[in-house]
Each structure stands twice: as structure tokens, then as C-alpha cells.
């Protein structure tokens, strides 16, 4: 009788311990996901700040490319206004596209290509683009880990009971980026 009681008690303690452990690891991952998201936000904001400078310094040279510039400015405003992960991802992808077409246009103007100011802005923007994609990569890794933990069998009970919700990935909707890179052989 006593033995059974002790075994039961031990089981309860073990179960409780496991519950706390699972809950804590869920919380830890959730905080990391939030942190990763704020990383993306920082980089996105930085890009929004850099764009007006770039537009200002190329404007003088590009009299015939008004609509390219306007598209960049419009995309930037949209991206700033967007809220929610899905909308934001879409707006930012559109902004990336317009920026890419702007850089393609810059290539056609020898004066612009030799301008120190434009060059260093271009370097800054390229770097920020890279940072955004790295931050997104880190965020998606963390979200993947978090979502897995919510869905796998024992922890999903804890997640369901404590109300942990799955997160969205920061996805790329851009076709060109989705295509597999060509391997040169």
C-alpha cells in the first residue's frame, strides 16, 4: 500500500517536473522568437531611413527615370504603413524588388556609378538587405523550432493548456527569389 503510494507520488512529482520543464522551454523559445522579430524590425527601419537619402542623391542625375524613383518612394511608404507579419513581409518584398530595379537603372548611368556618395549608399543598402535576409533566416529558424515544439506529441498538451499559439514565418513571395539558384558546371 505504502509502496504504491510512494510510486504514485513519485509519478506525480515527475509529471509536474516535466510540465514545468516543457512550459519553461516553450517560454524561452517564445522570447527568442520575439527577440528575432525585433532584430528584423531594426533592420527594416534602417532601410526605410536610408532610402530617402539614396533617392535624394540620384534624383539630379535621373531626369528620365522619374517613375522608378516614385515607385521606390511609394513602396517605402507602403512598407512603413504595413502591420502584421504577413502584410509586412509582402510590402517589404515589394520594396526589395523596386530597389533592385533602381540599382539596375543606376548601372546605366556612368556618372552615377562614379559618384562616391551613391556608391557608399549603395553599399549601405546592400549591407542592410543582407542583414534583413540574415535576420529573417534567424527568425524563421527560431519560429521553426518553436512551432515544432508546440506540435510534437508530449509538449503539445502543455502548449494547448497554456495557450501557446503558432507563429507565422516571414516568407518570400517573390518568384525570382524563390527559383532555385542555377548551378554553373
Amino acid at each position, binding site marked *: 500500500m505504502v509502496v504504491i503510494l510512494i510510486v504514485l507520488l513519485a509519478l506525480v512529482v515527475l509529471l509536474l517536473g516535466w510540465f514545468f520543464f516543457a512550459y519553461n522551454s516553450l517560454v524561452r523559445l517564445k522570447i*527568442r522568437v520575439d*527577440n528575432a522579430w525585433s*532584430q528584423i524590425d531594426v533592420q527594416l527601419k534602417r532601410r526605410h531611413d536610408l532610402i530617402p537619402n539614396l533617392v535624394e542623391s540620384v534624383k539630379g542625375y535621373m531626369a528620365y527615370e522619374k517613375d522608378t524613383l516614385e515607385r521606390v518612394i511609394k513602396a517605402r511608404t507602403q512598407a512603413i504603413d504595413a502591420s502584421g507579419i504577413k502584410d509586412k513581409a509582402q510590402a517589404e518584398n515589394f520594396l526589395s524588388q523596386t530597389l533592385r530595379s533602381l540599382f539596375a537603372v543606376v548601372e546605366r548611368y556612368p556618372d552615377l556609378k562614379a*559618384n562616391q556618395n551613391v*556608391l557608399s549608399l549603395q553599399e549601405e543598402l546592400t*549591407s542592410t538587405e543582407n542583414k534583413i535576409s540574415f535576420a529573417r533566416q534567424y527568425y524563421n529558424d527560431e519560429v521553426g523550432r518553436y512551432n515544432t515544439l508546440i506540435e510534437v506529441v508530449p509538449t503539445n498538451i502543455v502548449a494547448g493548456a497554456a495557450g501557446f499559439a503558432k507563429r507565422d514565418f516571414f516568407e518570400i513571395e517573390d518568384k525570382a527569389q524563390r527559383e532555385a539558384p542555377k*548551378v554553373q558546371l
Partner: protein
Amino acid sequence: MPFSFIDIEEKKTRLLGCLFFFVIFFYFLTAYLVLLILRNAFGPRDGFFWPSGMSVLAAFGIALFVALLHWATSTSHLIEKLSLSIGAMELDAKDFYHKGLQNIIDEVGVAVGGRRITGMVIPSVSLNAFALEDFQGRAVIGVTEGLLTRLNRSQLEAVVGHEAGHIVSGDCVTTTVTCALAELYDELFSRLKAGMQRSRGRGSVLILALFLIIFFMRFLSTLLRYFISRQKEYRADAVSVRLTRNPLSLAEALSLISTNWRGGGASGERLESIFIVNPNFSRLDEKQGVFSDVFSTHPPIAERIRILTDMAHVDTKTLEEHLKNDTWVSPVARAEFTQADGGPSAWRVFADQEWKGPFGLEELQASGLLTPETWVKPEGSEKVAHAYEDETLLSVLSPQAAEKKTKEEFACPHCRTALGELYYEGVPLQKCSHCEGVFAPSHKISRILIRRDKTFDPEIVRMAEATIRERDRRVDGFYKQKPVNAWVLDCPQCGRKMRRQFFVYSYPVEIDRCVYCEGIWFDRQELEILQYIYENKEHFFDDSSF
């Protein structure tokens, strides 16, 4: 989970603890050995004695004290000390390449989840990269100037990713501390050696004793290296691939580094384990097996490249072909010799009741129209102003005023006007807009010579060839001159006289070098001629030993 920082922290502390106890143990063993020898040499002559319990305890106390002292001295200012001994310097915030490097490091910092890493650079032609980290979590990633020049952006990113891999997986601290522990003795050793040679005879017994002890301790630094596993390089390669998702670029970078000079002999003698590829060629490194697993610091490069190319589904031959055909030119090449700040370069002048021009700066001076009171407006703008209100024009108008203003800045030693900033192959230099002379502080010269963005005019090529052809005659003639004219110009940086001389005998370009601050003044085209000769040295000299 590779990124569980708690695991890594635990592992880190455990390894460092091991290291610390190893150091104590080593000192204890040494003290015990010395005790044993002393007791049997000076004690009673009959038979062999083991030291008593008390003396063993004393030996342990001494060992503990020395170990603590050693630990404390080598781990304070870890990063400063080690970067000094490999000759690494802080990044030049204005330099185009350096800015790019810091950007890449920041990008990788974001990729590992937001971490600040400082960039550094070794002013050397060799190709290599290193990482350092101290107990406070300050991290440094450094590359050589040669690497910065030769690698393209994605290759550089892969290398930085590898170094960041060392930092996030926690082996960087252990390596850094181990190197610092070993470094202390190497430094003492070399200093004593120099001291011995200087003061021959005097106090030589004492020095000899010290010398012996330190020689013994140097053995410790050799032992310490076996704490560093060669596996860490594979792990860091893996992290780099996981961050950049680009195994091919890392393979390319490794292949480039391994087939060029990696800086052997130039950097700190025993610090090879902080580098991505061992600076000294080591036969042991290139071998597989238990023996080399224990005793070498780096895995075989061929093996590393093979793993990476397998990941990218490319074979090693195609990689080599690809590298051969890859002539990558950085975007900086386009920006050469452009004025850094966007000041006006042409003006319209109001004279004889009408606006004339636009004139360039030189034209304006020659025209005789320019006085301080002249009305001018910069080309492309409607802002009318007196000439003295325009900064560029003021420097032409009154050299004295300009000289006063630029006392701490820079003034041209010929024309006495303020020097403007200029980017030459991404390096910020001072250039005179009149005589087109260029001033370069000494530490920037190596950077310029290494970088290869610039394409040369036929005129420069002709002049460089003429320079080399007449070398012997000129060397003779130059040194037969009285040294009266040898000190002509004032150094723009410190104001002292500069000595006119050849850059070096093998590159007989006449330059003015300040003997105090070692800055160099190049007259018009001299820098380009020097660089042309340097970059085509194989063409000019039979053996490339220069």
C-alpha cells in the same frame, strides 16, 4: 541544438576550468621536479630521497601562486595584447574596403542572432583571417589587407561566417586564452635572448638560470596547444555554411588562402590556432590519423575543401577552373580619383558686366579674374556669393589663411593650399587640387599597394618603364648629388622637413618621406607609377623577390 547558448556557456566554463587546472598541475610538477633535484644534489650523499610532506605542500603553494600570477597577467587585456602581437589594427572608418568589412561583420552578427563584433585588419599582403574573444564576451574578427582585396563579397562573408562560428560555438575563448598563456613565455623568451646577447658576461649566471627556467616553461606552451582540437575548424566551417548557405564561396576562399602566402613568419610565432588556415605550412596538418589529430592545430585543407564542394555538388577541379577565370573587380574601382566631398568643381564669374565661365579652379586662377571681392556662383547653382565666402576658392585666394586653417589638417607642401580629401582605391588620402600631389600616411601605403582596382593610363605605363630602364643610372646620379636638396618639403602632417629619396631601391620612384611621422608625399603621378611597378613586378624584375 547547435545554438543553445546555455550548453555552450557550460561547455566553455568546463573547458576553461580544465585549462586552469592543467596550468596549476604543470607548475606543481615543475616545482616538485626542481625540489627533487635540489634535495638529491645538495642533501646527504647516501641514497635517494623523496621530498618530505611539508616541502611538497610548499611546492604546491608556490605552484598555485605562480599559476595564478601567470593566469592573471595573461588574461588581462587579452584582445589588446594578442592583436598587438599579430600586428592587427583597428579599422579605418573612412576607408571604403574597411567599411565594407565592418558591414559584412555586422551582417554575420545579425545572422547569429544579434551580436556586436569588432572588425580588425592586419596590414599585410598575406591571406588569412582570425577571431578573438575574451571573458567579457568582447569579440574581434580580423582579416589581412590581402584577403580584403583578393576575396569577393560572398567569399569574404563565408570567411567571416567561419570566424563567427568560432565565436558562437564557444571555442574562441578557449583558443584565445590558451594563446595568451603561451604568448607570455614566448615574449619573455625572446626578450631574454636579446638581453643575453647584449650584456655578454655580466650577471650571466642569473640570466642563464632564468633562461633555463623559461626554456622549460616554453615546453608548457607547446603542451597547451593540444588543448585546441583541430575539429573546431570543421565545426566553424559548418556554422559558416549554415549561416551563409553558401558552401561554394567558403571552398573558394579556403582554396585561395591555401594557395597563396598565408603570412607565415610575419605574425606571432605561436598564435597559429586563432587563424582560419595555419599561417605556417605544416606537414602534420595535412595528414589524417590519431597522431595528427592530437598534435596539429588545423585539419587538412584538402579535406575541408572536399567536404564543402561535396555540399555544393561541385568537384574540386571545376572549383579550380572557376577560380582561375574569376576576375572580380570591386565597385570601388569606379570611384577612383573623385573628390570625396561634393564641393563645386566649376564656377561662373561676374566680370565686365556679364557672367563668364564656367571655369575650373585652375582656369580661374590663370584667368586673372579672381579677387576676394569677385562675385561668383558655383556651376549648377544660382547662389551668388563673394569669392572669399567659398571655401575652395578661399584656399586658392589666400594661402596664408588656408595654411592657418589647416595647421592640424593638411596643407600642400608645394602650393601651401589646403589639401582636399580623395579616395584612391578606397583609401582616403589628401590630395592637392593644384599640383595633384598626394600625401599618404605610412600605414596606408601597404593598403594601396596591395589593392588592384586601378587601371593605368598608357602614359603611366610608359613612365614606369622609363623609370625602371634608367634605374641604375639614376641610382648613381641621385646619390652623387650633394644632400643639400635632399630636404626640400615640409611634411603636411607634422610640419617637419621631409627627406627626398627613392621609395626603395628596387622601386626607384622619387618620393619625399617624413622621417618623423613616416608620411609620404607623392608628386603628380608618382603614386601611380610606383603602384604600376609594384603590381607588375614580375614583368619588371627577373626574380620576384622584391
